[in-house]
């Protein structure tokens, strides 16, 4: 058997890929769960709060799955973030952020069956079904049981009247619509604005691209074919409720910080600098290419 030694490198604020030390322990479930967790480029003391145990099939299920908390521990078993630890045992639901395929001009209709809060995420969950398939999606602000939701992949010349809950490509929406669960690359699945109360606004269309304003007041240009759903994400006031004390935070999974004074850097404090102006560069022309056969 070949042992691959792991190494950790730090350059500035980023951490490169970590390879774990093999065969550290032989417990089966822990072994399997740790093999599936890989780190990517992240800030230094970043560790997720936990990860779910996905089914071995890899298929989509609506059943609740177990969620294993990290406790601030890294792949190597050491404490990297001391402010994470504890918390209740919760169920993790597979949420489908991908947009389904729809027929032309007619679209796909789905019915809302149940709405309930998510124990881990800030946005609420909605059970939705068509035909013989059920799935969980993000619930928007004014969703009720019994609503019917449509997805359309057409881009007509006249912009579509945007109803809450329906999903269209960005090229079909009029200017000023509020939108969530946006795709960055068409076909990849929703990435932007999935947290509770988040929403983006469509500003203008320039050439081949659509410009949006994100909740951090950045502007972004995306292609016409990226899908998005109309409306604001549910549970918008979850930030405004203050914590009652340390006990409530501890029972939710946050550990207290030290009382020792730490030096404040440019990261702390209010951000006053204005954002850069947004310029859309034209796409470069595509030259014809020829392949030469080697004789």
């Amino acid at each position, binding site marked *: 058997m070949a042992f691959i030694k792991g190494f950790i490198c730090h350059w500035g604020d980023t951490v490169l890929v970590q390879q774990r030390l093999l065969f550290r322990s032989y417990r*089966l479930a822990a072994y*399997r769960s740790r093999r599936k967790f890989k780190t990517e480029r992240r800030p230094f003391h970043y560790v997720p709060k936990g990860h779910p145990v996905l089914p071995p099939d890899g298929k989509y299920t609506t059943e609740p799955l177990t969620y294993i908390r990290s406790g601030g521990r890294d792949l190597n078993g050491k404490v990297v973030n001391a402010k994470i630890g504890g918390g209740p045992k919760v169920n993790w639901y597979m949420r489908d952020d991908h947009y389904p395929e729809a027929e032309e001009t007619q679209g796909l*209709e789905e019915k809302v*069956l149940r709405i309930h809060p998510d124990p881990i995420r800030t946005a609420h969950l909605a059970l939705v079904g068509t*035909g*013989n398939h*059920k799935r969980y999606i993000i619930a928007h602000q004014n969703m009720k049981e019994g609503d019917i939701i449509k997805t359309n992949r057409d881009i007509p010349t006249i912009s579509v009247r945007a109803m809450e809950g329906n999903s269209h490509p960005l090229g079909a929406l009029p200017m000023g619509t509020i939108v969530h669960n946006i795709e960055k690359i068409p076909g990849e699945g929703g990435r932007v604005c999935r947290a509770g109360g988040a929403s983006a606004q469509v500003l203008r269309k320039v050439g081949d691209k659509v410009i949006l304003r994100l909740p951090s007041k950045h502007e972004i240009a995306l292609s016409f074919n990226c899908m998005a759903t109309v409306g604001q994400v549910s549970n918008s006031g979850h930030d405004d409720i203050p914590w009652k004390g340390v006990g409530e935070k501890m029972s939710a999974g946050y550990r207290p910080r030290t009382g020792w004074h730490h030096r404040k850097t440019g990261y702390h404090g209010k951000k006053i600098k204005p954002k850069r102006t947004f310029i859309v560069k034209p796409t470069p022309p595509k030259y014809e290419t020829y392949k030469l056969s080697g004789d």
Partner: protein
Amino acid sequence: LADDPRFYVPPKGEEKKNYRETPAFLYNRNCRFIEGTKQACFLTKSVRYDGMPESVQQLIDKFEVPDESRLVQKAILKSQIWDSTREKLPKRRDPEYPRYKIDREYGIPLEKRLNMLSFDLLRMADTAIASQYPEIGRSRRLIFYPNGMATFFKYSDSLLSFYLGIDAAITSTSPLPPFVPEELVESSSSEAIPSLYPISPTIDFLKTNNYNLKNSIGFSEISCKFPHTLILLNNDDWSEDERQARALVTAMGLAVAQVKKTYPGIKDRLPTPISVQVINMSETTMNFTYFQLNTIDFDNSEAGVKNFVWFDTGNVLFERRLPQPWKRDKILETSLENLDLDPFKKLLATVGNCAELEDSSTQFKEKLIEL
């Protein structure tokens, strides 16, 4: 390396047993209908009525049990308090104060409570009916935990297979007469069933490629082979709507299994309708369903004759208040309150349905034998 559990790969569908190429939808006792009775009515192509049918409602005060309230109270206390089993009950969190940690309790588990209460009440009902019609003992049987009920049929280009789970069944030598005369059956073709668009009623079925198709009534080799009533014990925490939907589908499955045996090859309307009764028992409540099968053509939900369903839900025998130790009144023990004897009378009426016919038919048969 082949036996190392770290590198275990579960077998695919093709390697498991009973693999077929065309997929099928399976129904089980644990299938929870998301739309409830509306979905079940659309599947079975049945028109819905609330309440009991007239032929059963006339029998409510006919059968009497002497010292009714005392015997019912005795049955309840026997199952809830007097029994001597002591097991660890499951953990409990109250929705009123979910962060409070309630102490672990020891007592009688749910299964045993249900079995004792329901079978005690059934026994009392049997004695009450046998006091008036003594020949019923030969024309009826009570079977506990019957096994092997299953059907299958095609539903709009997909195969459905039903495996039914029943806790007790009353069977008789003669079938139940229909609840409704034939004129209303023909006029039902004009009534409409509410549609389920965009959902199909098989959304909660399990789709697999490994299945076995089977059509059988579990108790066909004995003389009493026609089902009279079915008894289901609700061991789950489902809503009343979902329990009634389960009762409907089990009644439909058993009726279809019987039809396929007596009239093989039939596709549309039946010459004589088949009727089945179902009783749903939970800890404190009882639900009744009465189903009448007129057609087997479940594909067309608009055209043709329809089946009939009567639902009677929410009959509460008694209330059971659980302890809430954080309150100032100190509700520290479970308390039983508000006894109501109406559901017991309805139970007598359903179990005693068409007892006259069986009594007279057995007397007639015995007189023939004597001659």
